[in-house]
C-alpha cells in the first residue's frame, strides 16, 4: 500500500526555494571550470575550429533544452492533464532561456565558413578541380545554393528565433496574468492557451525542421533524410522531458513543490519518458533500416562516416545509452515511483542526448569523418559544451527563480491536492 497523505494543503509561499540560488552558484562553478579547460585545451590543440565544432554541439544541446521546454509547454496546454500543471513553471523557465541560445547562435553565424563546407566553398567546380571535394559534393553544393547560402542561413536563423520568441513571450505572459486573474474563468484561459498552442505546435514542427536542416543536416551537404526533422523534434521532447523531470524532482525536496508532486503524477511523467524513449529508437531504427536497405551512394555515406573508422562502438554505445538503459530501467514501476532512481534515469537520458549529438556532429568534419582518433581538439567536444550548458543553467535558474514554481488558478491544482490512492 502506498503512503497516503491526508489533508494536503498548498503552502502560502509558492516561490522557488532558495536552493535554486545554490544550484546556480554550482552551475557557475562548472561553467568556470569547463571554460578554463577549454582555453587550456586550445593552447594544446592550436585549433580554433575544434572550439567551433564543440560550440555547435553545445548550441544544439542548449537549444534542445530550451525548445524542448517550449514544445512540451504547448503540448501540455493542448492535451490538458495534471502532469502539465506540475511541470508548467519549469517548462516556462526553460522556454524563457531563448535569448541566451540566440547569443550562442551568433558565433556559429559569424564563423559559418569555418563550420559548413557549403559556405566555405564558393566555386564548387573549381574546388572539384582542385580535389578539395568530390563530384557528389560539388553537385550538391551547386544545386542547393538557392537554399544553402550564407545570407539565407542568417536570415532564416533570425526568423526562427523571432517565431519561437513570439510563442514564448505570449505563453509566459499569459501564464503570469492567469495566476492573479479573478475576472475570467478557467474556460477562458484554457481556450486562450489552446488557441495559441495548437497552431504553435504546427509552426514549431516546421520551423524546427528548417533549423535542423540548416544547422545539422547541412554539415554534410550531400546527405538528406526526410525523417530527420521529425527525429530532431522527438529528440527535443526526449531531452526536454528528462530535464524538466529532473528539475521537478530536485525542487520537490523543498516547499512548495513537495506539496504538489504526488507519486501518481511522478509515475505518469516516468511513463511519458518511456514513450519518448520508444519513439526515439523507433525513428532512429526506421531511418537506419531504410537507408541501409536502399544502400544508395548519396544516402549511405552519412552512416558509413558514422559507423566505420572507430565510430562503430560510439554508435553502439549511443544505442545503449539512448535506448537499452532507459528502456529497461523505465519498465520498472518502482524506479518510476522512486525520486532518486527516476532522477538517475533522467541523467542517463540527458547524457545520451550529449553522446548522440556528438555522434551526429563530429563525423561530419573531414578530420573526424570515418576516423575516430584522439586529438587535443577532440576534448573540446566535452569542455565547450560543458561550459555552454553551465552558462545555460545559470540563466535557467535565474528565470526559474523569477516566478512562483507552482501556477495557480487552475482546477488541476485542486486535484493535485487530493490524497492519492494506490491505483489512482
Amino acid at each position, binding site marked *: 500500500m502506498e503512503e497516503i497523505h491526508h489533508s494536503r494543503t498548498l503552502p502560502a509561499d509558492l516561490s522557488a526555494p532558495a536552493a535554486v540560488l545554490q544550484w546556480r552558484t554550482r552551475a557557475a562553478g562548472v561553467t568556470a571550470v569547463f571554460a578554463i579547460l577549454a582555453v587550456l585545451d586550445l593552447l594544446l590543440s592550436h585549433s580554433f575550429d575544434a572550439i567551433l565544432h564543440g560550440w555547435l554541439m553545445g548550441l544544439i544541446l542548449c537549444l534542445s533544452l530550451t525548445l524542448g521546454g517550449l514544445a512540451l509547454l504547448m503540448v501540455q496546454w493542448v492535451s490538458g492533464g495534471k502532469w502539465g500543471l506540475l511541470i508548467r513553471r519549469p517548462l516556462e523557465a526553460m522556454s524563457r532561456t531563448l535569448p541566451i541560445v540566440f547569443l550562442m547562435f551568433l558565433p556559429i553565424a559569424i564563423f559559418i565558413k569555418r563550420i559548413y563546407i557549403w559556405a566555405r566553398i564558393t566555386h564548387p567546380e573549381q574546388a572539384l578541380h582542385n580535389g578539395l571535394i568530390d563530384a557528389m559534393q560539388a553537385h*550538391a553544393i551547386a544545386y542547393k545554393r538557392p537554399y544553402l547560402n550564407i545570407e539565407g542561413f542568417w536570415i532564416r536563423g533570425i526568423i526562427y528565433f523571432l517565431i519561437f520568441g513570439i510563442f514564448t513571450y505570449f505563453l509566459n505572459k499569459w501564464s503570469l496574468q492567469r495566476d492573479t486573474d479573478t475576472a475570467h474563468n*478557467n474556460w477562458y484561459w484554457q481556450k486562450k492557451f489552446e488557441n495559441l498552442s495548437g497552431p504553435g505546435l504546427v509552426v514549431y514542427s516546421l520551423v524546427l525542421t528548417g533549423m535542423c536542416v540548416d544547422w545539422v543536416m547541412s554539415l554534410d551537404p550531400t546527405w*538528406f*533524410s*526526410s525523417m530527420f526533422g521529425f527525429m530532431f523534434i522527438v529528440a527535443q521532447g526526449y531531452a526536454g522531458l528528462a530535464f524538466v523531470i529532473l528539475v521537478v524532482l530536485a525542487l520537490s525536496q523543498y516547499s512548495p513543490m513537495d506539496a504538489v508532486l504526488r507519486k501518481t503524477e511522478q509515475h505518469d511523467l516516468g511513463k511519458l519518458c518511456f514513450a519518448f524513449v520508444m519513439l526515439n529508437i523507433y525513428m532512429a531504427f526506421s531511418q537506419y533500416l531504410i537507408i541501409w536497405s536502399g544502400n544508395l551512394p548519396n544516402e549511405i555515406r552519412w552512416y558509413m562516416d558514422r559507423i566505420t573508422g572507430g565510430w562503430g562502438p560510439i554508435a553502439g554505445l549511443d544505442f545503449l545509452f539512448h535506448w537499452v538503459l532507459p528502456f529497461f530501467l523505465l519498465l520498472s514501476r518502482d524506479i518510476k515511483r522512486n525520486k532518486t532512481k527516476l532522477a538517475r534515469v533522467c541523467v542517463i537520458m540527458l547524457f545520451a542526448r550529449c553522446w548522440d549529438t556528438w555522434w551526429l556532429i563530429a563525423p561530419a568534419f573531414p578530420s573526424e569523418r570515418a576516423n575516430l582518433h584522439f586529438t587535443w581538439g577532440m576534448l573540446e567536444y566535452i569542455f565547450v559544451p560543458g561550459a555552454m550548458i553551465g552558462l545555460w543553467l545559470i540563466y535557467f535558474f535565474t528565470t526559474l527563480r523569477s516566478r512562483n514554481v507552482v501556477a495557480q488558478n487552475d482546477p488541476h491544482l*485542486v486535484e493535485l491536492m487530493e490524497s492519492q490512492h494506490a491505483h489512482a
Partner: protein
Amino acid sequence: MVTPGISPQEPRRVTGADGMIDPVTGEQRVIAPGHTFRSVTEKLSRIVLTPHTPVGWFLGLGLAGSVAILLLVAVTWLFLKGTGIWGITIPVAWGFAIINFVWWIGIGHAGTLISAILLLFKQKWRNSINRFAEAMTLFAVVCAAMYPVIHTGRPWLAIYWLFPYPNTMNYWPQFRSPLMWDVFAVSTYATISVVFWYIGMIPDLGTMRDRAKSKFARFVYGNMALGWRGSTRHWMRYETASLLLAGLATPLVLSVHTVISFDFAVAIMPGWHTTIFPPYFVAGAIYSGFAMVLTLAIPIRKFYHLEDLITLRHLDNCGKVMLATGFIVAYGYSTDIAYAWYSADKWEFFMAWNRIFGPMGWSYWILIVSNILIPLTTLWSRKLRQNVVFLFILSLIVNTGMWFERFVIVVVSLTRDYLPGSWGTYKATRWDYMTFIGTLGLFTFLFFLFIRLLPMIPMSEIRQILPGAKINEAELQQRGGH
C-alpha cells in the same frame, strides 16, 4: 462527486439547458448526467437482448450482405482465372490489392490506439467507444489480410511463400523481404487485437448471461463469460490483464503500419524510398481510423439513441485526434516535396513533379483537397467539431482522401520509374472495383452482426466513469478506510 474546492465565486460558463457542459472545465461532458449503474446496464444490454430486432437492422444487414457477395464472385473468378483479370500490368504490378490492403489495415489502427494507448494515458472518455472501435479493427484486419493472400493469385500455395515452416524441401521464404515481415506484423496484430477485445468483454458477457431470458442466450453468453463472477479477485486479474495487453498492443499501433511502410520504403523506387514513411504511415493510419470511427459512431448513436453515452465530447475528441494526425500527414506530404528538391536527385524531383502535374496528377489533387484542405482548415473550429452532420461528411471525405493517398503512392510512383522506356499506365478493371466494394460490404456485414449480438459499448467500463463510481474520500475516512 465532482472535483471539490473550486471557489464559489468562479464565474462559470453558461451551462446548456441539457446540462451537457461540465461547469468546472467548460468542456462537454463525457457521459450525460443522470445515468446510474442500472440505467447504463439496462440501456446497453437491451439492444442485444431484445427479442424485437429493429427492421432497419435487417435491411442494413441484407444490403451489406448483398454487397459482400460481390467479393465472393470476384474472388471466385480470380481463383479460376488468375490475377490477369485485374488491372495490374508491368510496371504497375501492385494495384488495387495493395492499396486496399494498406487502406484497410490503416483503418484498424484507431481501434488499437483507443483501446490500448488511451487506456495507458488514462483517457477515460475512451470507455464509450473502445469496444466498437476494437471490433472495427478486427473486421478491418479481416478485410486487409485477405488482399496479400489473394494477390498471390494462387493462395493455396501462399503458405509456402509466406510462412516459414520446416519442410523436407528445405524451402524458406525470403526473411529480408518486408512482405515476409508483414505476415508476422499482421498476424500478431490480429491475435493481440482479438485477445484484447475478448478479455475486455468478459465482465459484460457475464452481465449478458445473467440478464438473458432465453436458455440458448444464457448458454452461449455463459460459456463465453468463462465463469466470470465479478469477485474482487476476478476484477483484479481482469485489470492486470487489461494493462498488460494494452502494453503489448501499444507498440503494435506503431509497428504494424511501420512494417507496411517498409514494403515501400526499403525499395529504391523514387516516391517509395523515403525515410519519413514510417511515422507518416502510422499517422495516416490513425487519421483514417478515426475518420472510420466517426463514420460508424455517428449513425449508430443516432439509430440506437446513444447520444448520452457517445456524446459530443467523443466526437470533438475524435476531431482533435484527426487534426493532430492530419497535420503529421501534411508534414509528410510537405517533406516529400521539400526533400524531392533538397535531395539534389533528379529522379526524386521528377517523381514529385509527376505526382503533382503528371498524367495522374488528378489523384494527387483529390488527396490534397480531401486530406488537407478540407479537414485541416475546418477541424480547428470547435463548432464544426461538434457538428454531427458535418463530421459525418468529413469522415467520408477523409477516408476517400486516404484511399487516394495510397493510390498515389502505389500506382503513380510505379507508372513512371527510372527508365522512360518502361513507363506505363494503370486502369483498374471491374474485378478490382468489385473486390474493393465487396470488402466494404463484408466489413459492414460483420459490423451489423456485432452490434446485434454483443454489447457494443462496454457496460462495465461506462459504470466505472459514472459519478457514483468515484471514491468519496470523506466517507472513506469516516469509515476508517485504508
